[in-house]
């Protein structure tokens, strides 16, 4: 005989094929517990009520159970009920759904319909809250936030450094030309302050990195092209410079953090393409789980959505790579090889992410080796740029 299992906030109901409740295994009447049970159940775990209902079904001579949710069906099969079928939706479950709250009242589970509604509200609230907490507990999302923050700080650093060059340049433009690296420039600025200081011995000692250049500057004939300024002018510039320098510190701290956490959550991805680029991919995909479930072709284009949709819409050439353009072998290679390298790389990233998410083994070295081999192959086979063929006209853009 067939038995239909109806799962709801009150517990498990067993119905015959006429929609009559023939037995039940109800949950304790506490919304927190109800939510717990439903949560476990919907992950396919065998809870006490499943065992109870299985036994009751057996004693009633039922040899086949019908459910709607495949994962919950798994729980029943997991307890050893051999004949479990998924029929979704099925008419019996629909009948039960049409009178769910009345049933709760009739079985004495709730005093009246209002109480049943209150319970259902609390149970669904607790269930959702729990799933939200589970989702935010994932550390891959922390790393995604960190890498976004890193990008923002880098943007700010560039802006501030350019500003400082301009600003300090009013007074001492020669230093800007002398020191190309932003961070070194700001350090030098902080040591020097007013330009006359470069003649002082103790200042020169602190400028060990660029001492030779500064010597030349001092010895060169002619005066500085900068304007003379007041001490308070220099002071405020130094203030900005010192905070900017702090940001550089924060920047490297964040990098170390991303490096560390990537080692915990996605060691293969980290080893294959580096911690920061790996974290950017996780951030773009919306989490390691999603990255692991993406096809390689999508990974190849993560970060190039705009170009992709433009291509789809107007029929221009589709993009070859998204954010993985930042991988040195992609952007350093000649144009006609990039797409092929990006494709090979995306394939390996897909594997690395899947291994990281699903098994956690370490396979990055093999992946790297394979990738290097393939890149070498591409570089040999496609050494020369392709001959120009008569270009097909791009599809005419559709009018909207």
């Amino acid at each position, binding site marked *: 005989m067939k038995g239909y299992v109806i799962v*709801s906030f009150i517990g498990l109901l067993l119905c015959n094929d006429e929609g009559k409740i023939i037995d039940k295994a109800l949950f304790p009447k506490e919304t927190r517990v109800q939510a717990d049970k439903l949560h476990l159940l919907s992950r396919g775990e065998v809870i006490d009520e499943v065992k109870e209902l299985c036994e009751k079904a057996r004693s009633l001579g039922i040899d086949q159970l019908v459910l709607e949710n495949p994962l919950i069906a798994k729980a029943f099969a997991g307890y050893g009920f051999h004949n479990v079928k998924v029929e979704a*939706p099925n008419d019996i479950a629909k009948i039960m759904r*049409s009178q769910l709250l009345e049933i709760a009242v009739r079985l004495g589970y709730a005093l009246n319909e209002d109480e049943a509604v209150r319970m259902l509200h609390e149970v669904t609230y607790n*269930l*959702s*809250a729990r799933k939200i907490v589970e989702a935010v507990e994932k550390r891959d999302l922390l790393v995604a936030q960190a890498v976004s923050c890193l990008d923002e700080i880098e943007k700010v650093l560039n802006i501030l450094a350019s500003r400082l060059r301009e600003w300090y340049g009013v007074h001492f433009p020669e230093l800007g030309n002398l020191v190309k690296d932003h961070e070194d420039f700001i350090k030098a600025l902080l040591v020097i302050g007013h330009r006359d200081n470069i003649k002082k011995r103790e200042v020169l000692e602190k400028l060990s990195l660029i001492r030779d250049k500064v010597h030349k500057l001092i010895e060169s004939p002619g005066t500085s092209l900068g304007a003379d300024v007041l001490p308070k002018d220099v002071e405020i510039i130094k203030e900005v410079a010192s905070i900017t320098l702090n940001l550089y510190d924060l920047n490297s701290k964040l990098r170390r953090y991303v490096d560390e956490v990537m080692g915990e959550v996605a060691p293969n991805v980290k080893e294959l393409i580096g911690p920061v680029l790996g974290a950017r991919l996780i951030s773009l995909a919306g989490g390691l789980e999603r990255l692991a479930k993406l096809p390689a072709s999508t990974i190849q284009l993560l970060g190039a959505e705009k170009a992709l949709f433009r291509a789809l819409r107007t029929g221009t050439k589709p993009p070859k790579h998204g954010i993985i353009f930042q991988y040195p072998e992609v952007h350093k290679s000649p144009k006609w090889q990039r797409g092929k390298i990006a494709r090979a790389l995306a394939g390996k990233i897909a594997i690395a992410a899947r291994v990281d998410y699903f098994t956690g083994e370490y396979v990055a070295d093999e992946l790297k080796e394979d990738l290097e081999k393939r890149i070498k192959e591409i570089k040999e086979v496609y050494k020369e740029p392709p001959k120009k063929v008569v270009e097909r006209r791009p599809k005419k853009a559709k009018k909207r």
Partner: protein
Amino acid sequence: MKVKLYEGMEGVYVVELEDGSSRLATRNLVPSIKVYGEPLIRYEGVEFRVWDAYRSKLAAAFMKGLKTSPLREGLKVLYLGAASGTTCSHVSDIVGHKGRVYGVEFSPRVMREFLERVVKYRKNVMPILADARLPAEYAHMVEEVDIIYQDVAQPYQSKILVDNADFYLKRGGWAFLAIKARSIDVTKEPSEVYRRELEVLKNGGFEIVHVVHLEPYDVDHAMILTRRV
């Protein structure tokens, strides 16, 4: 200022402001609590929440001439794509304490907002963190409903509606479907997208009652009111 019923439609009101303009509103189920920063209005001892047509596609559909609405006090609604609950809260206002709204939302981040702003205060809203494409996975939390409201920016929108209707919609039940042409297929003309989606609905046992385009409130969006026969 005056508040009156919107052309005899249950639960939907029109507020005539002093400057002569008029806005939609619903009767606030939980007085003094705002959901998304909307103005609250007191009129003859009753509190109303102004319903912004630029933020809610259902309000936009009313503004664009949707004349009939199956929404009534006491009905049960399955709301797919609840997001942070802007429109959902107005539906909750309309169905009232005797009605229920099952709000399905897929993103945990957005669901957090939904819980904080809407579910906490409204006992007639049941939150469901799940994927609307897989109705079997939340069958243990939803009862049979009178209406499905769907706004999930996904391809195969109509199919999602039909699948959910198979599970949850009662015979003769109604559905609202907000169609975002650009989410279905950017490469196709919106009109082509609408036509195809309507086809899927008809094959799924729905008759189309009304289609309204939502410009200028939402570009390339349409609201379809449909009924299962």
